[in-house]
């Protein structure tokens, strides 16, 4: 399958997101209960879905890394987690804004969806100290993959546990018995979700492209300047792609 170029993905992401937000403001009806603030749903929920899906994708890349030993998969796993954590910050912020407007509080502790997302977020934040606490690069990549797999298995179990424990206050927009979302809202939501997924993909690919470009650059520089050149600090991840700089030089 031919992968569309980075430019095509970026343009698609921008168009889809713009269309999605245009639909949010000009097409989707106002919510009867919550009014205008409900529109943050079209940002909050796609962010959350993309963030969680990104963690699962990171686990899949990690499995492939362990099976093949190819450092490319480790970089993909790292970048997926990285962007999903950034999206996760967005989820917590937009969620808090929504909670404040709709329940009057910035954070509600007896709400399972909030708490379980926070736990997942806190777990993935520890990926960075874990990764950079390991010096040997091969081992760093392998251990990071093991973490990504363990945490990937943890995500669904955590949601089950927290949901079993507490009441449901968080709106269940898709799961309600009598209909759920009206068609126009669902369509708007799906466009926003697609746009957000494209944005995630496109940011992942930008970061991957930046990493491989800086690898090429440092390889060229080394070729030009001989072995006296020290690798730039941006090459901490993925020696296989970024650079094979001898560690004595850095």
């Amino acid at each position: 399958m031919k992968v569309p170029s980075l430019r095509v993905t970026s343009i698609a992401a921008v168009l889809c997101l713009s269309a999605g937000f245009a639909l949010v403001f000009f097409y989707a009806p106002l919510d009867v209960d919550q009014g205008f603030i409900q529109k943050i749903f079209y940002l909050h929920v796609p962010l959350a879905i993309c963030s969680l899906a990104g963690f699962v994708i990171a686990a899949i890349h990690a499995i492939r890394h362990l099976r093949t030993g190819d450092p490319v998969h480790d970089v993909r796993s790292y970048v997926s987690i990285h962007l999903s954590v950034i999206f996760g910050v967005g989820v917590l912020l937009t969620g808090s804004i929504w909670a404040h407007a709709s329940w009057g509080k910035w954070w509600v502790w007896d709400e399972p969806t909030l708490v379980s997302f926070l736990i997942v977020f806190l777990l993935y934040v520890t990926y960075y100290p874990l990764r950079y606490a390991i010096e040997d690069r091969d081992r760093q990549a392998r251990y990071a993959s093991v973490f990504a797999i363990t945490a990937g298995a943890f995500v669904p179990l955590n949601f089950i546990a927290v949901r079993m424990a507490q009441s449901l206050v968080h709106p269940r927009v898709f799961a309600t018995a009598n209909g759920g979302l009206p068609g126009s809202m669902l369509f708007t939501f799906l466009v926003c979700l697609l746009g957000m997924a494209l944005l995630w993909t496109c940011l992942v690919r930008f970061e991957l492209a930046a990493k491989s470009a800086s690898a090429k650059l440092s390889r060229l520089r080394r070729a030009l300047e001989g072995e006296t050149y020290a690798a730039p600090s941006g090459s901490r991840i993925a020696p296989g792609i970024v650079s094979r700089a001898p560690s004595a030089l850095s």
Partner: protein
Amino acid sequence: MTAGSEARAHPGRRRGVSVDAFKAILAKDLRVELRTLQSVPAMALFAITTFVLFRYGLDRTTLSGSLAAGVLLATVLFAAILAINRLFVAERDEGGFDAIRLAPVDGTALGVAKAGALMVYLLVLEAITLPVFAIFFLDSWSGLPALAGVLALTDVGLAALGALVSVIAANSRARDLLVPLVLLPLLVPVMIAAGNAAEPLLAAQGPDYGGIGKWLGFLALYDMTFIAVGFAVYDFLLED
């Protein structure tokens, strides 16, 4: 012929060799613990001191329900972290990792044996601390047998994840720092399930066994998932 070369010559016997290695490493760990008394006494002492702290800190003579469950489980969790921090220290400092790899024993046998040793430590810890907890805080002891069952299921999860995180931490720079940082979020679901299962058992009006089935089921699911993850990844953690 050593066990390792036999395994290479007859791949079919590998499984038997791994089981032997698992037993040997587990026996070694338990013997070391019996002779040095490094982990379990420290854990028990820590747990009892924590109970004293809670007793004065909460200013209550008896506890029941969710507060009792929380005190017990938080204490067990933090005591477990003491053991998890030390689980691979001997292997790292005394060259055990290299020796075991040279034997050659595969990583899974080592990892599972360490999880087994941790499980034994936790069971001993609870055999000591549960009566102390009951004396300190409980009016009625009738829920204790069922509570011991809940704790045993909790221990499996603690041991499976604890051994996994301990290997990672032992081979990193941050070591003792990394264990609580990574392990605590991973154990939140275990603590939620164990807390909810223990709460009705410690209720003030006597134990109620009605709602704990689903929590025990969840604990079992969690335990099995991370035992399976452990089996899948130990070889990669202990490769070099």
